[in-house]
């Protein structure tokens, strides 16, 4: 009864409070704008992916046509771009764009998808340096401040809405004098504050989840119901954390001004300072090698490889006897020599890249260890993961592209070494890439720990608030 009574009264208070209505309206606009922004980015990605796919088909069609023309007595368009040469057909001319579809809920969280490439042109020349470079140039301002998407609004701004609605949930009652009359009724401060916060939590979570579901509906993300559930659960838990924190601070029975100061301070520390500190620590403790190092290594290896191609080819054939079918090492073709040099460069780049990857892994491990310090980090991790724009899905894509690049080489390199001539008949057998997306269980498995910790924090803070509010007996 008390719950229903307080909920009804809260509704009336909200309806009568213009300032509160304006705050809610402003946040509603922010949420909708963030969604529109995310949807615009997703559409851009989809167009790019579609263009890459079309490019694949057009390239194959053009090669097929040219090979057929040559077979009928025509001449190649250029002697250096003769598609019959396997290093041309498997090289830049015949390269296949391996694309990553936007995440199932990409419109809600851009994540790092605007920083990381979402397609690679795979050819026999694909090597580690290909994975270190970004194919698309993004708006530098976006890279600096991040995309204004729903995940950003949820993680950074939603706590401010919660605090605006809850920082004085009890102190205001005391300051305006209604607490005495309220607590003279057969209700406890805990019940009243709980009901008031429940109403405000319904508003906030309803707004955040409502706009999210609207976006999911508009982009067809309901096919990934597990991800939708995960998204909504994270938004709810994260909002509850801030409501619980506001309840706990209110239970300390200080003034509204004091509550506001402490809660904004908590927001600053938990949402801004700690995540930044963890990132800075990761960069300082495990600095990534500079990309200049990678480029220098590539150039040095290239120069050296060109000078020692014959020796390198002999060594390559020794290391890869499976590729050596029909090759006479003593009289190698130009393609074979070039491939030997390319492989030597790739090997050197793999060494440099291994250092880079190890440092990056150390950085991630540090961030993962200290993410528990900040609910904002935990929520962001799960939100971008649920949206399919997190690290894990991208790593899966990159790993599949690496495997595909290997498959591509396995297809073309023996022909290069054997100095074979390619015909249109081989085109249907050329490998193609299709990203095998992760299942809901993979995402849920990764989210289990951060969500459990976030839930544990919520329970802990609610328990603290409950104990504190249980001590509130009167209006003093």
């Amino acid at each position, binding site marked *: *009864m*008390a719950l229903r*009574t*307080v909920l*009804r*009264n809260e509704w*009336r*208070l909200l309806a*009568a*409070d213009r300032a509160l209505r304006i705050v809610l309206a402003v946040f509603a606009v922010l949420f909708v704008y963030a969604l529109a922004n995310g949807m615009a980015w997703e559409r851009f990605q989809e167009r790019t992916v579609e263009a890459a796919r079309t490019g694949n088909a057009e390239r194959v069609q053009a090669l097929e046509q040219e090979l057929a023309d040559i077979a009928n007595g025509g001449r190649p368009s250029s002697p250096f771009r003769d598609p019959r040469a396997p290093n041309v057909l498997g090289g830049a001319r015949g390269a296949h764009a391996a694309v990553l579809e936007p995440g199932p809920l990409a419109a809600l969280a851009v994540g790092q998808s605007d920083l990381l490439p979402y397609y690679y042109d795979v050819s026999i020349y694909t090597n580690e340096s290909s994975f270190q470079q970004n194919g698309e140039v993004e708006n530098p301002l976006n890279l600096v401040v991040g995309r204004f998407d729903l995940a950003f609004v949820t993680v950074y701004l939603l706590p401010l809405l919660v605090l605006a609605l809850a920082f004085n949930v009890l102190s205001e009652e005391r300051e*305006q*004098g*209604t607490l*005495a*009359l*309220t*607590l*003279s*009724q*057969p*209700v*406890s401060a805990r019940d009243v504050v709980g009901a008031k916060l429940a109403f405000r939590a319904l508003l906030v979570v309803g707004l955040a989840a409502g706009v999210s579901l609207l976006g999911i509906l508009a982009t067809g993300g309901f096919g990934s119901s597990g991800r939708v559930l995960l998204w909504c659960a994270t938004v709810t838990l994260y909002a509850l954390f801030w409501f619980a924190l506001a309840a706990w601070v209110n239970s300390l029975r200080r003034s509204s001004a004091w509550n506001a100061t402490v809660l904004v301070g908590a927001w600053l520390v938990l949402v801004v300072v700690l995540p930044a500190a963890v990132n800075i620590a990761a960069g300082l403790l495990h600095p990534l090698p500079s990309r200049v190092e990678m480029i220098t290594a590539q150039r040095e290896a290239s120069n050296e490889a060109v000078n020692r191609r014959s020796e390198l080819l002999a060594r390559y054939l020794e290391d890869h006897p499976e590729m050596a079918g029909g090759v006479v090492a003593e009289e190698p073709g130009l393609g074979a020599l070039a491939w030997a040099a390319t492989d030597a460069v790739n090997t050197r780049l793999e060494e440099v890249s291994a250092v880079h990857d190890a440092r990056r892994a150390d950085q991630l491990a540090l961030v993962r260890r200290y993410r528990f310090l900040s609910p904002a980090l935990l929520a962001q991790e799960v939100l971008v993961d649920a949206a399919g724009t997190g690290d894990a899905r991208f790593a899966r894509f990159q790993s599949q592209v690496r495997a595909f690049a290997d498959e591509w080489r396995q297809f073309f390199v023996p022909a290069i070494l054997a100095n074979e001539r390619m015909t249109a008949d081989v085109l249907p057998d050329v490998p193609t890439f299709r990203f095998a997306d992760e299942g809901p269980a993979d995402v849920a498995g990764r989210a289990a720990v951060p969500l459990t910790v976030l839930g544990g924090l919520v329970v802990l803070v609610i328990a603290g608030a409950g104990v504190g509010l249980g001590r509130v*007996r*009167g*209006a*003093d």
Partner: protein
Amino acid sequence: MSEVVTIDAPSASASPSSAGASPSVLEARALSKRYGDVEAVSNLDLRVGPSEIYCLLGPNGAGKTTTIHLFLGFLEPTAGSVHVTGLDVAAEPLESKRRLAYIPEQVMLYRNLSGLENLEYFAALGGRGSLAPEHLTDVLAGAGLPRDAVRRRVSEYSKGMRQKVGVAIAIAKEADALLLDEPTSGLDPQASNEFSELLGRLRDRGVAVLMATHDLFRAKETGTRVGIMRHGRLVTEMSTDEIGHADLERIYLEHMHE
């Protein structure tokens, strides 16, 4: 002008002490409240029966408000106990409060809501469920609030009008006991008289009233018994039938100068 509001008889018979000759609705037993070295209430024994208006007199800091807050469960006694219709307030705080109504010195309400909405909220919170707006309007009118004011925002009310909403909240609760903390402070004489009449009507319906006040005249006129507190102690108590206005003033001043 004010309509008579229907108020059910309080259930004083629920009190275990009602089995005795003088059942008490409100009772303090050896009640003490200490803040550090300061004893705000000291070994207080007090009983207020049905249809009784007990006025607690005393200077500021005598312990009157503390006593009322102890009955409300706002404070925890250092020693002794308080009982409402026989229920120990410390053991059953919510059930005790269900049987109490309280009007503070300054009735503060939700400023953005109307008097009617405030009454509806506090009546529902007090356990009366959803009451019809017509009934609540009658209650407000019975408490002296003009009918054309019941749907206006409280931010437009005078202190007297807010006080009347407070009275209406207490009436609507149909409690066994009413606790009043300086209820006429700041009210004009007419409003004070109306308030006294209202208390008389509640007394006639069997409600036990404990009122902390500085107003000796009002205490004599309205109360059935008067107790004088000083330094947290109840130094004397008397029936208002036995004394005149001058006697009460003389006794009060004597105790203040001891």
